[in-house]
């Protein structure tokens, strides 16, 4: 990509410069980034399961490694991405059905509030695996 077109896309006057982005734009960017991340994870997930199919012993070892706090923390971040993508996606579906468009900012923040609650519940469920059992 040429420098000029990069500036046009992401520079100070572009629609992607943070202070130029409105609520809906943040939602759009977030949806795309989490979407790409989740597709990458999907194929990672498939390849890990393939490991289980091909070699049972090494899969059990792999899963033992994945149960370490650092990887469980990454799992939690994955859960956050899924929750955001799902709740923002529901918002898109609602708008496509003609529901809530006039109050689109409010709907966004309602969905984010639901996401925050789900993330907290997720953290509560997962925390045992990060910090150890009580």
């Amino acid at each position: 990509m040429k420098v000029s077109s990069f500036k046009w896309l992401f520079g100070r006057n572009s629609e992607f410069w943070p202070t130029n982005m409105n609520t809906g734009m943040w939602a759009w960017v977030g949806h795309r980034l989490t979407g790409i991340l989740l597709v990458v994870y999907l194929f990672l997930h498939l390849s890990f399961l393939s490991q289980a199919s091909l070699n049972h012993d090494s899969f059990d070892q792999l899963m033992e490694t994945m149960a370490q706090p650092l990887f469980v923390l990454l799992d939690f971040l994955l859960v956050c991405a899924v929750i955001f993508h799902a709740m923002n996606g529901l918002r898109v579906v609602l708008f496509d059905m003609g529901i809530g468009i006039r109050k689109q900012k409010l709907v966004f923040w309602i969905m984010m509030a639901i996401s925050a609650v789900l993330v907290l519940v997720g953290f509560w469920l997962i925390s045992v695996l990060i910090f150890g059992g009580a």
Partner: protein
Amino acid sequence: MADKRLATSKVAGTWAWFFQRLSAVLLIVLLGVHIWITHFADIDPEVHITVAGVETRLDQLLYIAVDYALLAVVLFHGLNGARTVMLDFDMFAKRHRAVDAALFIVGVVSLIWGIIVLFPFIGVNGG
């Protein structure tokens, strides 16, 4: 970003749009069931996933159905979403037929591979 507004025919685009929404709603249900059964239902959450555990879960026909349905729906949703992102860029929009073909092949191969991958786990305990 793409200058060509319509990369595919309007009809095909509308179906892609519709199925993306339908699969989105299905995914929320299927993924919820998948995560709950895999990590929380009936197993000690402090015990990590094992081959034996997967074999036990996949003794249930319902769970095999959930897993395979999830595989098909998530592959469609993920790859169709990737297509949407790609077609926003000129370099891909110019070659949208090649993009469609490539993603279709990736999807079909992954689906078949994903189905085969679970075979060694199914019916191990005679359930």
